[in-house]
């Protein structure tokens, strides 16, 4: 057995680390394809960016589609957004093998220097996809009202265990015959008291309740670390 000699530079961070102490809060945003994850991340950045230093990592099926959308929307400066490849399996990259996301988070946080919040957006996936505890400190799961009002009833790890469940596009409910009140009730039945928000991100200030929830997570963290 041999010890490998180390030289000079500070070690790579090997532990998952502690948010607010040696790294920023890491927030996962997941949910099915087309539910509004990229819109939510974009709106969140717009709402928080004046007071919070934010970095974003996207896990698109095709490398940089979502990152490009966020860059084009100019929600953050370009150097604060990176995309990682997921080898055709977006859920693997956020749950089973988080290595490339961890690497991207550390590289990005180190390069920017003063990050308070790193948002990791998953690729659009199925209802069983959740973020690993080794990657994020909190996660938001986003559903589409028009994606079927039986989805909260079907449940699954995303619906049941996300720290915040967002039911998006409630403005579409009358056009697709979705019962939003029933969706929220079904979600509540599965979530053991964890919050659910029914919103429309396209509406004025649609993001505000979500942004407020994220601000509270950041405040909890700064209270913990002082």
């Amino acid at each position: 057995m041999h010890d490998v000699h180390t030289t000079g530079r500070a070690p790579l961070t090997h532990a998952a680390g502690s948010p607010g102490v040696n790294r920023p809060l890491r927030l996962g945003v997941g949910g099915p394809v087309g539910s509004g994850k990229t819109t939510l991340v974009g709106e969140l950045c717009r709402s928080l960016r004046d007071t919070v230093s934010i970095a974003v990592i996207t896990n698109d099926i095709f490398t940089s589609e979502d990152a490009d959308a966020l860059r084009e929307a100019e929600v953050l400066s370009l150097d604060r957004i990176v995309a990682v490849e997921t080898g055709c399996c977006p859920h693997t990259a956020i749950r089973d093998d988080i290595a490339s996301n961890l690497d991207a988070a550390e590289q990005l946080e180190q390069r920017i220097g003063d990050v308070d919040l790193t948002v990791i957006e998953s690729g659009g996936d199925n209802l069983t996809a959740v973020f690993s505890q080794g990657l994020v400190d909190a996660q938001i799961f986003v559903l589409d009202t028009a994606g079927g009002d039986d989805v909260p009833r079907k449940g699954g790890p995303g619906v049941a265990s996300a720290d915040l469940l967002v039911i998006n596009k409630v403005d579409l409910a009358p056009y697709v015959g979705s019962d939003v009140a029933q969706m929220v009730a079904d979600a509540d039945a599965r979530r053991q008291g964890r919050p659910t928000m029914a919103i429309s991100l396209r509406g004025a200030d649609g993001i505000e309740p979500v942004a407020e929830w994220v601000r509270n997570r950041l405040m909890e963290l700064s209270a913990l670390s002082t």
Partner: protein
Amino acid sequence: MAVDASALPLHKPRPSSVGLATLLMLADGRLPVGAHANSGGVEWACQIDDVADPEVLESWMRARLATIGTIDAAFAAATVGQIEADHDLSILDSELSARMVGERSRLVSRQLGRQFARAAHRIWSHPTNGDVGTPDGPYAPIALGMTAAVLGVTPTEVAGVALHHNVASGGTAAVRLLGLDPLAVAAMQARLGEAVDTIAQDADVWAASDPADLPSRNSPLAEVLAEEHGTWSSRLFLA
């Protein structure tokens, strides 16, 4: 065509300083080091080189094993030897850079190396931080070799693991990208086993060799295509 198991030579058990379970973990594609997002060049091969069926994939994979596969195996084995001899690994790092001239290939190998070093440190709590004196972390085969040295894995074993990952990554990517029959791909992997074993036989020589004399036959075309792959706007795999 399947491999006829009855025709395989019987090997006597060989002494190894590492536990079988440790070696199997190192070889397991499910080890969370980010390998699932590395096609080992197969993504661009599917698009540019017309790899579309298991037969062509096998030819392509043999070429891969003879070029960057051999270099990876040699540098993993040499890392074990250099550490045993108490040598500075920065020479190996420079020698591998000289064999991997494309900026994209280097960037990818260092990312995979960082990911491996980060995971290995958490899993086996070994005292290395994966640092070879470069700001961007170790190249992938050197990171693998560093862990092998700490765990007591032999040069031959670590060379075999490096080659196995080469074949497994490419095969899995081909299944995902082309929808190839996974059993046909597994049969291909079994047929490549002999090539893997043959290449790994040189590992003890590599472990004792001057880094400048390690294998250097990389494929310039592969380097160019990897560079181009890095510029694709729609990419499913890191490399």
